């Protein structure tokens, strides 16, 4: 081995604790330990907090810059917690903030135990956690189990010392012919799942970019090392992980190498660590698969699930868009009818938009062409298999549709995940590369840099949105916070209403059908701990035109519907179909008051 070779050379972490700052005589990389840092206080205990939580995805880079270097950071984010508490957010989801060469938005992690220097330090993260917990806000972050950056000291050791302790940490092969049935995910950039490494003289396996070698989970040391990564952050006080790209951990010849049994076995191990050592923290699976496959990631239903507590429901989101464009409830009804029941301690995560493109992996070719035609009229709006746009521009900034979509997000089964900026109707910049269109700075004020940073505007990591419709002078938190009629105030109010009715969180989803295809009506029915039943009725007009609907509510005969935003009582439900009329893209939320509810 070259005497001058340093496995941590590519990290850029001189002066802060990091993996590989020294090496033991046995060739083991020294890694930072949780005990080296302060630990955050925990948020108040609630083992199923995630079932009713409103999540908020925020990019550390994009939220607030505390040190005027043009890039958002952990201290900046911490300074905005009062705003997030006011909005009603229960849990922040942070995409990766680990050390990374940033060739894949930070998902190319080069050190699992260090923070990207421009975001701050591990101490800053503990500070953020502490401050968040004081406000009863939890924090989860992405953890990429499947692969590392090729700059990770593990990979550097693996390629230079095949016989050393890390020689078997990655999937190496003398040729590129194995696992031929595995699809290539990033079809735009990659031609093979194998790349030749001239240093080691072998091919390495990667399901994503070629600079992200897959970890070799057949190696027990890798499994232990990754469980220790979980423990590191859980010890510091983090509330859970969104496990990125979970279906791909193991490989097996003759399969597509997705959702393999051994992958589930490892997730059960992760869950056991959480249950035994860190109860109350969550694992959220990112598995862009059909619901019938995704439910596997909740694990065994008998104990209430023994793998991930939550999983994203990917196919629902494009279908919400499709249903509104079609003015037909069927795209939504169909996917929910195909969604199996989940174990009782589990919950879906649902979203309208996130930091990735609006992904169309989980729709048919016909539907994908349709979505492109509808929502990506300019070819620049497309990325990979998806559409890179924010919610407001996708909906042509139509306030009625923004409200309808948000109401659906807050009322369909699952915990809603908001994407930063969508609560004020931020725009995108399709002229920025890759997925940066939807990752521009949060717009706080009409002042310089939208109040995001006090740096020289030229230094900012991405230009703030400046067009006349979505620019920060028109769209910003400060202006909307003071206006009771703003999208922000409206969104906050709806979150508040949602939290007043736990039926939205855990209620059984009962679709009501009806003869009008443009109206999606459903009940959320929840049996309270005292045995009484709470029923919320949601009626959504997916059409731009006013619509009548007759609903069969005979199961709730005698109840009085109370509209939830204003408390107005509607006529009692009788034996005959219940007639409602809705304005274009209008919706209603009702609490169905029975005798016991009226008495309360």
């Amino acid at each position, binding site marked *: 081995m070259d005497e001058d070779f340093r496995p941590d050379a590519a990290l850029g972490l001189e002066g802060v604790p990091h993996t590989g700052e020294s090496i033991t005589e046995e060739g083991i990389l020294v890694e930072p330990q949780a005990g080296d840092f302060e630990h955050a206080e925990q948020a108040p205990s609630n083992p199923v907090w995630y079932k009713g939580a409103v999540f908020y995805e925020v990019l550390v880079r994009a939220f607030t810059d505390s040190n005027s270097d043009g890039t958002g950071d952990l201290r900046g984010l911490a300074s905005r917690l009062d705003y997030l508490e006011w909005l009603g957010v229960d849990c922040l989801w942070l995409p990766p903030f680990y050390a990374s060469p940033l060739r894949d938005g930070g998902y190319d992690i080069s050190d699992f135990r260090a923070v990207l220097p421009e975001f701050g330090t591990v101490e800053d993260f503990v500070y953020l956690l502490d401050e968040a917990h004081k406000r009863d806000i939890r924090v989860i972050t992405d953890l990429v189990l499947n692969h590392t950056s090729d700059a990770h000291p593990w990979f550097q050791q693996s390629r230079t010392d095949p016989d050393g302790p890390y020689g078997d940490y990655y999937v190496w092969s003398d040729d590129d012919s194995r696992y031929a049935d595995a699809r290539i995910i990033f079809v735009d950039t990659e031609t093979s799942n194998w790349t030749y490494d001239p240093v080691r003289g072998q091919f390495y396996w990667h399901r994503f970019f070629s600079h992200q070698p897959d970890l070799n989970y057949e190696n027990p040391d890798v499994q232990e090392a990754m469980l220790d990564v979980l423990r590191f952050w859980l010890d510091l006080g983090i509330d859970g992980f969104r496990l990125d790209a979970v279906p791909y951990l193991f490989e097996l010849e003759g399969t597509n190498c997705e959702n393999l049994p051994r992958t589930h076995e490892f997730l059960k191990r992760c869950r056991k660590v959480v249950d035994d050592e860190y109860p109350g923290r969550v694992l959220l699976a990112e598995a862009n698969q059909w619901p019938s496959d995704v439910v596997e990631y909740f694990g065994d239903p008998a104990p209430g699930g023994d793998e991930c507590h939550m999983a994203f429901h990917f196919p629902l989101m494009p279908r919400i868009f499709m249903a509104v464009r079609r003015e037909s409830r069927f795209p939504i009804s169909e996917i929910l009818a195909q969604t199996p029941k989940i174990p009782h301690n589990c919950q879906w995560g649902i979203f309208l938009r996130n930091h990735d493109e609006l992904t169309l992996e989980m729709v048919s070719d016909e539907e994908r062409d349709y979505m492109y*035609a509808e929502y990506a009229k300019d070819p620049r709006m497309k990325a990979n298999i998806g559409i890179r746009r924010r919610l407001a521009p996708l909906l042509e900034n139509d306030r009625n549709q923004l409200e309808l979509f948000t109401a659906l997000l807050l009322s369909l089964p699952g915990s809603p995940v908001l994407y930063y900026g969508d609560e004020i109707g931020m725009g995108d910049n399709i002229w920025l590369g890759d997925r940066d269109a939807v990752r521009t700075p949060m717009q706080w004020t009409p002042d310089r840099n939208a109040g995001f940073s006090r740096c020289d505007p030229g230094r900012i990591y991405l230009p703030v949105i400046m067009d006349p419709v979505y620019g920060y002078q028109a769209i910003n938190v400060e202006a909307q916070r003071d206006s009771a009629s703003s999208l922000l105030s409206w969104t906050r109010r709806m979150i508040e209403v949602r939290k007043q009715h736990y039926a939205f969180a855990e209620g059984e989803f009962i679709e009501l059908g009806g003869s009008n295809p443009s109206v999606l009506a459903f009940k959320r029915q929840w049996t309270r701990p005292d045995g009484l039943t709470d029923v919320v009725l949601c009626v959504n007009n997916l059409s731009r*035109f006013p619509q009548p609907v007759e609903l069969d509510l005979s199961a709730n005969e005698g109840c009085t519907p109370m509209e939830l935003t204003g408390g107005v009582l509607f006529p009692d439900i009788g034996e005959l179909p219940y007639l409602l009329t809705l304005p274009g893209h209008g919706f209603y939320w009702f609490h169905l008051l029975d005798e016991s509810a009226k008495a309360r």
Partner: protein
Amino acid sequence: MNAAPELIDALVAELPEWLPTQRWFAGKDRPVTAVDAVSTTVLLEGDPLLLHLIVEVRQDDRGEPYQLLIGSRAHLPEYLGSSWIGTEKGLPCYEASGDADLTGRLLDLIAEDAQVGPLRFAQEAKAPVQGGLRARPVAAEQSNTSLVFGQQYILKLFRKLAPGENPDLKLHRALQEVGSEHIAPVLGSITGELHGEPTTLGMLQKFVTDAVEGWAMATTSVRDLMADPELPPDLLGGDFAGESNRLGQAVATVHNDLRRALGDQTADLAEFDRAVGAMHARLDRVAGEVPELTGYAPALHEAFEEIREADGPVPVQYIHGDLHLGQVLRTVTGWLLIDFEGEPAAPVSERSALRSPLRDVAGMLRSFDYAAHQMLIGQPEDPLLTERALEWSRRNREAFCDGYAKAAAADIGDPRSHALLLRAFELDKAVYEVAYEHANRPEWLGVPLASIARISSGGE
């Protein structure tokens, strides 16, 4: 069981005046001269009382049997006021299908496999029915009366009766037998006796709560199209072509299922003559009543004659017989076909004959045309919107045929490859529509007439 004969006599005497006010009564063209009770059965004794009646309705030389449900109770609640027929012996009698206190009895009897007098209530094999549910009648029904029980079952009561097994029940049973996925399952039936023959009175099916009529789906799309006159139909948010395509596949699949269940034949020359003759005859009859049609008659006669030149043998089989967008339901699992009764106005012999499946295709194509144009009715003429309607119709008709071709039997294949037959069937259907609109909705007459003008002049 027998109700008091005097009550029934008095009630029946009220019917000649009452029957023509009922939507499902098919003999509105002539006065009712007399009504005779053929059978009376008490289904529920006491107050309220539920009475089942089959009556023979006489109109001059014509006599036709109808099925009635009569309720009687001392105090008629307000919501039943509009169902009142007459007060006999101090007891108000009323049409009972809207009385949820009574109609639940029908389901209970099916669940019990009961025999009451001449009426046999039965569950289908392997389909246990749960009783104890209240019913509400389905609004907006034309020729029959349907009751929905607790969002679980729908019971169709046939109003105008014909001796024997109703084709609706017969075809549903046959389709169920071969496991068709495009029907609502049959769960039970009610059978009576007419002219000594067991006769279908009712059919119980699973109620599909999420179903939406194809007509409502299609007109939603048309509404979207008319609101955006700039965009071509394929770029519209509300584009319906995907649904039309799947609907075409469903119809072809049902045709295949019917063939598998009940067999098929090849039309012989005599049948061909009969079919062509029937088309000519209908045309002559309607052209005599509707002057606007007269000018097209020669071209239509010619189109009908031309099918004799159609290539190769024409397969015939059981078909739906009255297929249009109101007879198909979109559910979360796909399209269902309902109401296999055939054209309600057609005689039973014709309804149960084997016919070319292209007739159903033609019916659906005509329905797309109707859906496209329905928003233009009663509006000032607008060439742009008319062109939009045609574009929508073309696109969805093509998509339907594409879908049909995908699933069709080999000897039928793409319906458009039988251009002469398909055109003749469409024209025949349009002639029927002309007669119907002339009699019922004169402002709609332009829809079939414009299609006849277009098709007979060589357009599609």
